[in-house]
């Protein structure tokens, strides 16, 4: 009981002492003025926060250690029919969504889906294969620039750029994979970080080819013979005329959303299947223990490279969609902050867990839009969420589920 009240009080006093000179002293000409309101407010917030945390803790422990991990056999999901209905409803609502949203929220939804793709890709490298990659944005950039430059120099359309960008990014994944085959943990993280920066710097400085900081314009996707503009070019039909409806700039974005949604579904299917395939199992085994893997006849070289290539490929697809949705790419979209954000999504969502990663990706892209008014505190909230998660849910929002096989006896 004493801890319950005393500790928050101590916290509040500490906050007051620390913040009073910073937030309370205001320079007024040549003299100071002490304003008590801001530091007191901060201290009060800290007091309440700490109190709430303590109360939750007390309640939890009164419930008898509900946090402890279960050590029994892994539970099988109990209501498969319910789960299926839920999934179908979710799918339908995602399909209906673009017709209900305005332009602004459509672009946000597209961005969220792109981050879902990126997170699914990085989830393979970090969550499944256990290789800490801080330069994932490089593959995103390769995909985006693959489309942009392909369009600029070779006149590639969206549909040919999609597989090409994916393969190009996978190739870069292998290129990065080779030198880091023997690296683990921190060393790997640093090398991948460097790789990400190299790609960005090359894009930034190779002005003749990439346009440098000025970026490259990208064509919007279309269907063969159909265009999403008010007036179609010679020989094509404008989409709204084809359907006989009024022109709206939203059609293009809706179309984009629907393709992207389809691709996300495909990639989800791919990753879900991979987890059940020998390759995916080898990735997870590699994450758990590389030496044991090798002792079981698994060639760690091919397994690692395939994880890098597969993750990079998905990142590259995300990049192509990013370029197509923006209509323009330049290197500022591919900074280290993006890598960190994607990594945060994967960690917060739960390493290796597909639903967790998807939820985290959506939350972390939509939430900042909802909280535009507090955009100054975005990073702060982000950090707090990270710390909180590490304390209470170190395995992420949704813990990765293990497959359960029917045993022969029980």
């Amino acid at each position, binding site marked *: 009981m004493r801890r319950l009240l005393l500790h928050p009080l101590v916290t509040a006093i500490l906050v007051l002492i620390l913040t009073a000179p910073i937030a309370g002293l205001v320079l007024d000409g040549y003299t100071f003025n002490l304003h008590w309101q801001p530091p007191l407010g901060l201290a009060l917030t800290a007091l309440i926060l700490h109190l709430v945390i303590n109360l939750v803790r007390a309640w939890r422990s009164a419930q008898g250690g509900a946090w402890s991990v279960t*050590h*029994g056999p892994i539970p099988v999901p109990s209501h498969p029919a319910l789960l299926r209905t839920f999934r179908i409803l979710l799918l339908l609502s995602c399909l209906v969504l673009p017709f209900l949203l305005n332009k602004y929220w459509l672009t946000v939804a597209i961005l969220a889906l792109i981050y879902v793709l990126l997170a699914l890709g990085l989830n393979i490298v970090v969550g499944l294969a256990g290789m800490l990659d801080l330069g994932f944005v490089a593959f995103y950039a390769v995909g985006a620039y693959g489309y942009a430059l392909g369009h600029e120099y070779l006149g590639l359309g969206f549909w040919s750029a999609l597989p090409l960008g994916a393969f190009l990014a996978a190739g870069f994944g292998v290129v990065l994979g080779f030198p880091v085959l023997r690296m683990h943990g921190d060393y790997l993280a640093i090398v991948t970080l460097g790789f990400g920066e190299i790609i960005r710097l090359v894009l930034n400085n190779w002005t003749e080819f990439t346009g440098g900081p000025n970026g490259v314009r990208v064509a919007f996707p279309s269907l063969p013979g159909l265009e999403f503009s008010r007036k179609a070019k010679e020989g094509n039909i404008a989409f709204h005329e084809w359907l006989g409806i009024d022109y709206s700039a939203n059609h293009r974005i809706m179309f984009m959303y629907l393709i992207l949604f389809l691709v996300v579904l495909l990639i989800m299917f791919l990753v879900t299947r991979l987890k059940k395939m020998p*390759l995916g199992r*080898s990735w997870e085994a590699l994450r758990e223990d590389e030496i044991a893997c090798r002792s*079981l006849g*698994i060639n760690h070289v091919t397994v690692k490279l395939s994880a890098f290539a597969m993750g990079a490929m998905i990142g590259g697809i995300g990049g192509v969609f990013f370029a197509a949705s923006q209509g323009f790419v330049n290197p500022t979209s591919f900074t280290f902050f993006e890598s960190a954000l994607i990594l945060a999504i994967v960690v917060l969502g739960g390493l290796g867990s597909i639903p967790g990663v998807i939820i985290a990706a959506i939350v972390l892209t939509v939430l900042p839009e909802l909280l535009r008014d507090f955009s100054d505190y975005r990073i702060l909230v982000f950090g707090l969420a990270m710390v909180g998660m590490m304390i209470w849910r170190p395995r992420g929002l949704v813990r990765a589920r*293990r497959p*359960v*096989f029917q*045993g022969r006896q029980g």
Partner: protein
Amino acid sequence: MLLEVNQLHMRFGGVVALHDVTFDVKWGSITALIGPNGAGKTTAFNCITGFYKAQQGRLRLHPPNRPTVDLVQILGQPFSGSDLLHPGRLWTALGYKMFGGPHLVCRAGIARTFQNVRLFKEMTVLENLLVAQHAALDRHFFSGLFNTATFRDHEATALNRANDLLDFFELSKEANRLAGHLSHGHQRRVEIARAMCTGPILLCLDEPAAGLNPMETQALSGWIRRLQKEMNLTILLIEHDIGLVMELSDHIVVLNHGEVIARGTPAAIQQNSGVVEAYLG
């Protein structure tokens, strides 16, 4: 003769871990490798299973009905001048250099366990056993992606085999639990079962009884016997539990300071004054 170890040398900087180690493992036997702490037993294991590259020496596996495997060559050796004169040899050497390693030793038929258990802790026991059977599975990307009939067949066969092994080691109840949550004794058993999943000819066990209580050790001894008898396995064993070694092994090799100080039957080893002085005490 199944495994031939000839004049193996291994140094770590100034430390000579193995010096002129020579011994054989007979087909179908249980051979024990014993010696005081730091004698170089685990190092010898690591050389045999390809985790260390010995500086000198020959290691050959003579599987029955199959060609002999040079366990040193498949790890990838530095190129020598004579390779340049034989393009064919150069090509193989290059291949092993790029794609060689311990996994080829395993595919040649040697499976091993580790002194400190190395399970895939965040995966279930069955998954551990399935990972080990990857070579027997349908690894085509698209058959896995579309869950074809062949793919499911292979998975079912592998699952069956895994369940058989779990039955054998009395682990059926633990099949769907995370390997990291098992007791130490169970983990050791899972590790042996997992090694068995690779379909080995020679099974190398590094201190399988370490950390087990006397009852568990007794049970383990029974299982090792049955592996040898029922599954026609050859077993190479490192163990500090002398009772277990004397009970099980057909042949004992004693290491001390990286050198073989005695080889022979359990009875002969027990009489050997050098061994008694250095190790048995």
